[in-house]
């Protein structure tokens, strides 16, 4: 552990490497966290299935990228109705496929589950979405198995300053994440639905009085969140690894970012996400890779404690 820290001091160029990696991963964390902030702020639902949406998007991209035999049957059994060969495509093309699929999935989940938990106490939404997370994890596990996967984008790597390696796909995904975030922000600002979402977030009752169909707004918000997460998942599957049970770590990252940055604070979310990405890279490097998950979860506790200390100054009821 101390050796690694000494290494960072002796070779400053490693810092640059970790920092760049952290920023490029942080940009994707920002997408999922923004989705969580949206759902949390508008519907007051804390979605613990956030990370599972990310992983689900990732698996769809992975599936499109491999040459696979499409077997229509019942997963977990040998019952097959028919088979067909599917050629692999570049996972970048999965983006326009994943976004509508995840949007539809979000809509379905809203009408099956989330609709019933909006008015209930917050613990209900936490537990219900956790149940949904378990179902998604397990179905992914049944379909794809527990192995760690990566979608190959086929792009090369470049070397900066002699020793800093930069994978082109990471730069590309940073750009894509930026474009997606900009699109979502523009949508929220200018479109009719975006305005309705913001109005509902401010005061659902007044919004209803003004003729906004809040049920539809909620459904749209949740679906939009699922779509954003799915897109983030596509990027994650190309630059990192996916596994059916990695979702919980992504959910916790989203919570860390949103709790630290506060709701409705988009610049805060982006900055915190970059910070978390970099911190995680540093933590993983300095303490060893086996501590990387522990760093993420430990940060959640740290953020909650800090928040508590800050709030102790003016004690008030927290929603």
């Amino acid at each position, binding site marked *: 552990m101390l050796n690694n820290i000494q290494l960072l001091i002796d070779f400053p160029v490693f810092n640059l490497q970790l920092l760049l990696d952290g920023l490029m991963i942080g940009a994707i964390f920002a997408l999922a966290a923004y989705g969580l902030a949206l759902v949390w702020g508008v519907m007051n639902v*804390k979605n613990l299935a956030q990370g599972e949406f990310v992983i689900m998007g990732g698996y769809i991209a992975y599936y499109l990228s491999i040459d696979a035999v499409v077997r229509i049957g019942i997963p977990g059994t040998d019952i097959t109705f028919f088979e067909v060969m599917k050629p692999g495509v570049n996972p970048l093309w999965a983006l326009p496929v994943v976004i509508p699929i995840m949007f539809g999935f979000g809509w379905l989940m809203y009408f099956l589950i989330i609709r019933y938990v909006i008015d209930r106490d917050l*613990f209900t939404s936490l537990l219900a979405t956790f149940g949904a997370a*378990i179902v998604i994890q*397990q179905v992914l596990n049944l379909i794809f198995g527990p192995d760690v996967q990566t979608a190959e984008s086929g792009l090369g790597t470049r070397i900066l300053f002699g020793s800093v390696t930069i994978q082109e796909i990471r730069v590309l995904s940073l750009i894509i994440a930026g474009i997606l975030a900009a699109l979502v922000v523009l949508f929220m600002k200018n479109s009719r639905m975006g305005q309705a979402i913001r109005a509902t977030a401010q005061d659902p009752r007044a919004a209803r009085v003004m003729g906004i169909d809040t049920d539809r707004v909620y459904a749209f918000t949740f679906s939009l969140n699922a779509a954003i997460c799915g897109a983030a998942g596509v990027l994650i599957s190309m630059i990192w690894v996916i596994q059916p049970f990695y979702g919980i770590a992504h959910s916790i990252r989203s919570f860390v970012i949103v709790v630290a940055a506060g709701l409705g604070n988009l610049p805060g979310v982006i900055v915190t996400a970059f910070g978390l990405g970099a911190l995680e890279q540093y933590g993983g490097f300095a303490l060893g890779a086996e*501590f990387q998950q522990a760093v993420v979860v430990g940060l959640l*506790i740290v953020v*909650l404690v800090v928040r508590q200390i800050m*709030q102790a100054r003016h004690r008030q009821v927290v929603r």
Partner: protein
Amino acid sequence: MTLAMTKSQRTLGLYGLIAIAAVIAPFLFSAYISQLTVLWVMVLFAITWDAMGGQMGYNSLGNIFFFGAGMYISAVVQIGLHYDVAEYTAAYGAIKVDFTPTQYYTGLVLGTIVAAVGSVLFAFLLSWVVFGLRGPYFAIGTLGIALAAGELVGAWEYVGAGSGISLPVFPGEPEAGERFFYFAFFVAAVLTFFFFRWLYQTRFGLAINAIRDDEEKAEAMGIHTMRYKTITWALSAFFLGICGSLFGNYNIFIEPLEVAFATVVFGIPMVVMSLLGGKGTLWGPVIGAILYHVIKEATWKYFLGWQWVALGLLIIISVVFFQQGIMGWAQEKWPELFGIEVEEAPAEGEEEAA
């Protein structure tokens, strides 16, 4: 008076029936003894969770932490009495533990006591961190603690990191060992039940119910809420620590993510069992635990491969559509059975007129 007599006799008869059934069950259904053993573990889980979530209104998602902590503390004590723990875990089970019965039982008893005390200490320490958090933040914070503990123990070489520790094997016939642990868990669950039953009848029970109903008002009425919350959390931890220690020995092999800090296997079902049976009632968690366990074993047997999907769906259904639980539903349906007197609700405006 006569009604009260018959009621207490009825309760006594019920306890007697359960006790007889519990004692003869392992001999009658000896093929299912491991399922029956875990049933009592589940009952204990549900009762201890309900003390926090149901009676005090603090919905913890991380109570499994104390189960795992107790398990590891006990394991380190038991091994540490006779071996060097670091050397033992580094050998990955190559060192064969061969304890004499005396060594085994003293280790087990001592380990369980230290585990219970250790869990209580952890509860006091953690209460500084978690009890400032309210509502969903409390749930997320406690979930974070359980997950972080699993990850940290999984990276800690001294206790065997991810490959876990194998514990001493029960000295004697395997069947005798199974029966021994069945009755150990049965006694632990019964003690837990009667302890909390007594607790809810005292002023302490009233105080934690007041915290659940309105913490600000309770504090304004002079209840030292922080003290009550910490003690309830510590009591939960005490019984979970004992249970963890016993479960480690029952399972022989312990490991951080799937056995000790098993959030999905044990941690979340704790909550679901209480909700299923009806949280905030005495019998609710017990009924919920039995029902959950039966459903779990049935899905294991008949939907192998799909069992976790089925359990996830069960969580969603019980939380979203059936949150009052079986006891809550029964109380609504037959209030007079529970001694609840239903007052005719006064019509709107009638109260003001009077």
